[in-house]
Each structure stands twice: as C-alpha cells, then as structure tokens.
C-alpha cells in the first residue's frame, strides 16, 4: 500500500477500532485528529498505550511493508510529542515511513 496521509489515517482508524474493543465505554477513542492519546487530557493508560503502539506497528508493517518502532525515546527527540493526538501520530508516522532525515518537529 502506498504511504500517503490518507492511508496512514485509515490504518490508524482501524487500530483505534481494534483498541476500542478492549477499552471501557468511557475510555474509547474517537477517530478524529484532535483525539488526545497521551499527556495532557490524554485518554489512554499505560496498557492502552502499549496496545495501541503494538497495533500501529503491526498494521503499518503489514500495510506499508516497513518496520516502524514507535519507541518514545526516538519520538521525543523533536519538540513535539507525536503521541499527543491521533493527528500528531499520523504526521509522525508519515515522517518516519517516508524516511525523512532529522527529528520530527
């Protein structure tokens, strides 16, 4: 599958659908760019975050044929946290999968 923002967002939406099967009703994530993930106002606890990361890494590997490691330490090299919202995560994944040099800002 081609690495486009649209395809990445679709992949993330599927991950959210699968993650929501594990979450309580009040914790379930919406599939919008503004939906918070971690940090201030973030909805996921540590296990929820781990489950989401594993899902995203697996599905991106399957869809785009590229290995993706969403380790926090790599992500925080830049000034923004890619796990702030669904939207920032999509941006970050696009940045990494596109093989862009340098930290993500």
């Amino acid at each position, binding site marked *: 599958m081609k690495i486009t923002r649209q395809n990445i967002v679709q992949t993330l939406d599927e991950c959210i659908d699968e993650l929501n099967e*594990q979450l*309580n009703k009040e914790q379930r994530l919406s599939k919008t760019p503004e939906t918070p993930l971690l940090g201030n106002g973030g909805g996921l606890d*540590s*296990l929820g975050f*781990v*489950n989401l*990361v*594993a*899902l995203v890494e*697996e599905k991106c590997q399957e869809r785009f044929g590229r290995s993706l490691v969403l380790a926090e330490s790599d992500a925080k090299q830049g000034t923004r946290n890619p796990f702030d919202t669904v939207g920032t995560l999509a941006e970050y994944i696009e940045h990494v999968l596109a093989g862009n040099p340098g930290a993500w800002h």
Partner: protein
Amino acid sequence: MKSELMRGLLVSDFNIENLSAYLRNDADEPYVQCAVAPYGQVAQTLLDPSLPCWRSELDFLVVWTRPESILQSFWGLLAGSEVDEERIGKEVDDYSQKLLLAKDRASVMFVPTWVVPALHTGHGALDLAPHVGVSRVLMEANLRLLKNLDRASSVIPLNTPKWLELIGEKSFNPRLWYMGKVPFGNELFKAATRDIKAALRGIRGRARKLVVLDLDDTLWGGIVGEVGWQNILLGGHDPLGEALVDFQRELKALTKRGVVLAIASKNEETVALEAIRNHPEMVLRMVDFVGWRINWRDKAENIADLVASLNLGLESTVYIDDSQVERARIRDALPEVLVPEWPADKRLYPHALRSLDCFDKPSLSDEDRRRAQMYMTERRRCELRSQAGSVDEWLRTLDLCLKVEPVQESNLARSTQLLNKTNQMNLSTRRMTEQELLAWASLENHQVWSFHVSDKFGDSGLTGLLSLETAGGRARIVDFVLSCRVMGRKVEEAMLHVAIAWARSEQIREVYAQYSPSARNKPCYDFLQRSGLRCQTDNVFVWDTSQEYPLHHSVRLIHDSHRQPGCCPLPVTPHQP
C-alpha cells in the same frame, strides 16, 4: 429475564489485563466482570486464601501460566538442557496441588494448557524426542496436568493449542511481550473469551439443545420436490455430496451429546420424508428427528410451534438454513433462536457446524446421550394420550414408576444439570455447581432427593429434584424441580407425597414451600395452587403433616435402599392398584 453478572478472578504470571478487557466487553451473555490477581504471584495467590482478591464471591477463576515460569525443568529445556522426567513430573504435580487447593474458592476454575510459540522449533527434528524435544516434553507435562485435574469436576482445562491453530502466527505477539509482558495477540485472547463464555453458558444450563434444519440445499443438494429423491445430491463420488454426508454425520454425532434434531422445511411432507427414508446415502433417518414441520406455512410459525411441542424454549434452539432470506426471517421473527451465518459453499458445512460453540457443556450424562430416544418415546406417549378416553385412563395405562434416591455422587452430574437448566417447574430457580449441591445436601438438616421417571414406553431418566431444609419443627421445600417432559403425569404430586411422608416419619409438623417468582416459573405456581397445599400468603403454600399427602393410584414408587450419610431412609409407600 435480566442476565446475571458473573464475577471472575484472573491469576497469571503474565499481564492478563487484555483477557479481562475482552471478557468484560464481550456482547454475548453471560456478562462478566473480572478482577486480576497481583501480577506474577501465582503460587502466593493460590496458596493464600486470606488475600484481598479472594474476598468477593467468585463465579469463576482463570489460572493461566507459561510453562517456563511454573516448571523450572522446562525453563532449563528451553535453555538447552535435557529434562529429567521424574523431576518435571514432580513440578507438574506440585503445581496441580496448588490448583486443587484453590479450586473451591470459585464455582469453576479454568486452566488453559501450556503452550510455547508455534514458531518455536525447539531442537528442530528432535522436537518430539524424549527428554530434549520441547513439544514432546510440553505434551507430556500437559497430559500429566490434565490427569491430575481429572478428579476435580469443577476444574475445566482449556485447549490453548486449539487457539494457536485457529489464530496462527499472530497467536503470540513479541512486541506486546517486550513492551507490556503480554505474550499473546488479541485474536488469541478473543478465542479464549469465546471458549470461556461458552463454558459459562453451559455451566448455567444455557447450552443449546435443539437444531432445527432446513432440507433442500441444507441436508442435501437440490430441491427434492423438483428432482425427486433419487436425484438429490448426497454422497457419491462428488465433493459436495461427500461434504453433505459428512455434515449429516456431524449432526448425528451431536445427538450423542444430548442435542436433538428437528426439521422445518417448505416442502410436501410425503416427498421429503420419502427422501429421508429411502435415499441410500442419508445418514440421518426418521429415528434421528424428534419432530418436523414440513409444509408451506411460514417457517417462523412452524419453528415456534415445533419448539413448543417439544417443551423446549426458543433460547435452546439453533436454526440452520442455506437460504439467507429464511435466516433473516427467523432472526427477525424469533430473536432468541440462534441462526448462525451459513456458508454458501456446501464443502464448508461440516466445518461450519463444528465451529459452533453453542452446544458446549462441562459434563455429559447418560441422559444426554439418550435424549433423542427419550423424545421418541414421548411422541408415542402423546399418541396414546390422544387415543385414551380420559386423563386418568391414560395415566393408568402408562404404568408410571418413580424411583427415589438421595442425591449422591452417582447421580450428582445429572441432578445438578437438572437444577441448572430447568426454568418452568422450578420453585426457587437456585443454580449451583455439583460441589455446591453435594455440600448443601450433606448438611444435617438438609435432605435432597432425585426422582427417576419411567413408564411402559421407556425411561425418561432423572427428571425431578426436591430438597428440604428443616428447622424448628418445620420443613421448607427449598428446591422443587421437574423436567417439563414429565409434567402433568402426577409426578409432581408424587414428589410432594415423598417429602411429606418423610416429614411425617420425622415428626415434623408442617411442610411448606415458598414460591420465588421468575420470568418463567409460573407453571410451578400454578401447580402449587392446585396441589392441595393451603395457600397461607401470596407465595407460601403449607401442608399440615397430621394428614398424609395422597399418592396417585397410577404412580408406583420405588425407594432406593442405599442409605447415604446424613440422609434418612424414606418410609415405604405401598402401591395403590
């Protein structure tokens, strides 16, 4: 009826929160809520009943471990060492003992068997060699674990390798393991959830008992009314024909598990029955069906009528039809009937049937195996009833015999099954596990009798249960349970006679029953109202034991002479001609 919430505890040496989440969120009944025992403290949790996690009343327990963390020898094997059989045997036995120690803290304990990742090749070609083969040692350890747990009826091992086979490569998730100590992928936890839920339904008496089948393009290929029975597709050297024969074989195998078969088909009855009787490749014959509605009426009406005639509920029924339109119609009209999606490809029929988990039950009794035969004999009884002049005359001709015995190990499985699955003639609708019932029965002021009904047509099996609790010179009927297939033959009255005769022999002055209404047990209330017991208040019915409770002349009582500890022998009642 509002579904009860079942409470469970999950004990594991890995992060089992994902299983807890799937169990909690699963849409199928029963609904469950799980607590999770402290991570990685399996032995401590099993050995210490004073821990906070044991404080709540638990309906079920899941103890799921990894072999390398429980069996030190297995850890060594994975690291390349050979295994000493005696030593690993002892490790398995020690673990089994811990499980058996903890099992009574919940009504049922599930123990998934041990697995390692399917891609783990062990020592390659030596994988099944003794002492060094990973798979070999694991099979033997699991077999020993199973044998140790066999004697505990409330422990249900779960077949983890089956889930691995279903899920394949994604069974294990290395990413989740290293990030969160979750070894298994989501699909495996979902498969585990399905099996645990199916088992809980079976334990609560909610396993499905009846399969209603369409005929054309379901039991055979083609439309029998168009092509004649000689030309339907069944058997022969044809892949679809062979698959349909196998499908019928699988259905027949289901009947050995206490599931009965029936037909609902839009056809000319004579034409359809001719195919069943005459086609040489039919596996299922007339004797395999407990009833049928073969006509041109609406199938939903036919199914409702058929199920009612069998004294079963729609919630016990599965309907299988190749037609998407008919399936949709039944789902819409009869939402309690389970209508599985059915493959268009007939080669997939046997597999589709085998994959249904709605028949799962934790135990199988002789009566389960003979259930289909019992329905046949019931049909003959009904035919005789329609010929008899009066109910009394009919009853007299039945030559009904009621064998009474205390609830004990030999009849415990069936007694518990009856208690848990009977809804209509059930005074208090108590639900108990085998161990709970046995424990209750063994208390000094409790009596529990089972009633085994037979007549000249055959054996209806253990179909009645009555329990008494005595206090202060009075005896309360706690359970009064009767299978609907023997209702209306004076068995109800005979059961009361037995309880009251015992109370009279013990100089107990009064026997009473307190009716607890449920969504389905009004027939029990109706019986109590006409039973001759005095209605003291709305739901309390009383008998003064200064009077005998009459035994109907058509019933012959046989008392089991084998005396159980804590259970007094029953007074003998002479049969009235």
